[in-house]
């Protein structure tokens, strides 16, 4: 496989933008340059039908009611999509942002904590699980601590939940009825075997798995100019690294 005409990050961003199509309101959380760029790209393609709130931005933060407003928006059913990660994610889409090993709260490894996940995962209809590292360390058979539970189909109130899991290797769709991930597409340059080798949980896998759609030239141009400039306000270091040409142009 020769060098791709787009970077790994560009593929992730354009994939996210595709997953957000049709949303009216999307928000991104802390330390989320790729979801942020994906949301801004989706907005640019929406013809004025999408609002995006980038946490940490000044120009792309429309909230006026303090830190609680994002959660209230989700409760009202207005927040269509959000992104969650996890120190561990398991095959039933349980996520763990607290710690691993040992006995809680004295876990061997301690991560920052659950943030808003224990709520947003239940309320936001289109949660995209996003974790770049694709390894058996992260994608485990069963999480050690459930910061937020995958959908149980037990009749409890749950308008929200994961639509899938995006990593450096692939896009898993989440089948809510079966409560399992299904390998939907593998990123160009990677294989189903590679995904299987690095995934600690069972997942459904069709006989033939498509390659994750590559961005076309128009989208790449839009991303490398306007979107890169927009996300640079909040994530200048990310832009310097991923879009060095823009950074060099002094935009």
């Amino acid at each position: 496989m020769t060098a791709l005409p787009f970077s790994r990050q560009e593929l992730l961003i354009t994939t996210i933008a595709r997953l957000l199509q049709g949303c009216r309101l999307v928000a991104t959380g802390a330390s989320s340059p790729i979801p942020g760029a994906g949301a801004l790209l989706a907005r640019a393609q929406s013809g004025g039908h999408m609002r995006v709130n980038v946490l940490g931005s000044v120009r792309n933060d429309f909230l006026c009611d303090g830190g609680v407003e994002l959660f209230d928006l989700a409760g009202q059913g207005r927040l269509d999509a959000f992104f969650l990660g996890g120190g561990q994610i398991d095959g039933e889409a349980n996520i763990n942002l607290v710690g691993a090993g040992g006995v809680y709260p004295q876990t061997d490894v301690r991560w920052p904590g659950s943030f808003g996940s224990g709520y947003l995962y239940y309320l936001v209809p289109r949660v995209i699980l996003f974790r770049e590292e694709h390894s058996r360390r992260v994608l485990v058979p069963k999480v050690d601590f459930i910061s937020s539970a995958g959908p149980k189909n037990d009749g409890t109130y749950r308008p929200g939940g994961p639509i899938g899991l995006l990593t450096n290797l692939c896009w898993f769709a989440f089948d809510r009825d079966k409560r399992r991930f299904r390998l939907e597409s593998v990123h160009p340059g990677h294989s189903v075997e590679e995904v299987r080798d690095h995934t600690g949980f069972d997942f459904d896998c069709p006989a033939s798995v498509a390659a994750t759609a590559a961005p076309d030239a128009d989208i790449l141009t839009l991303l490398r100019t306007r979107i890169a400039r927009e996300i640079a306000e909040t994530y200048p270091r990310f832009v310097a690294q991923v879009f060095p040409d823009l950074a060099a142009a002094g935009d």
Partner: protein
Amino acid sequence: MTKELGPNLIGQVPLQDLDRLAAQIPHGAKIAVPPDYSGVAMALTRAMIRRSLRDLHVVCVPISGLQVDMLAGAGCIGTVETSAITLGEYGTAHRFQAALRAKQFRMMDATCPAVHAAIQAAGKGLPFMPLRGLLGTDLLKNRPDWQVIDNPFEKHNDPIVLLPAIKPDFAVFHAPFADRNGNVFIGRRRELVAMAHASTASLVTVEEIRDVDLLASEESAAGTLTAAYIGGIAEVPRGAWPLKLWDIYEYDEAHLKLYGEMARTAEGFARYCDEFVHDRKAAE
């Protein structure tokens, strides 16, 4: 560089120096603090460490970082109630994690809107507030203080979590300025308003006291915490240092990097405190 104004009043609010303000907080107090980006009273935090406060119950509304890491490292904390502790790009919160592993404090893990809701409940004098989500989590399993009831407004089974009100003794934060009557400008940081309403009193450091009346216009009143909630104010320029204060000053990146390195070990943290807390080689 804190002005030594001595006992004084602005409006009906005591204007105090940093150490007198810190002296209002007794051992074992429950304090509510905002996230690193929202105006953390770091100078006051250093004064609290100098007083060797013990057994504080720190409620992070809804998360914290440097402040809790330092208080934990200095042994001031008895309970941490939070949705996350993170130094962000400045690395792991080593002192917090070490103290947690050593069982030096009780850990109450939450999720952000749960902290907000429980604080709002206290601000309304309610015994509890409901919250969606949380079902099936180990957060819920490890919080015996939370309860699940069946929503009485639904005919079918609809479990929902009830969170007991969090009633801190003090809301503790830093803001750009107070006016001559002790009203504090908080902009759209409404979590500060919620914290103040929930707490018995708010202890506030500000960059400066301005000879204005924030209540005089609709525009400025909209971003104001009224003096009735405030138990004491200290004028502390750069009082959030080395953290940022909104868009007024940025994180001191070099210092935070230094902290991140020194605080990897208990010894390094002790040296950090000698230099920047006890010797006051800081902003104040």
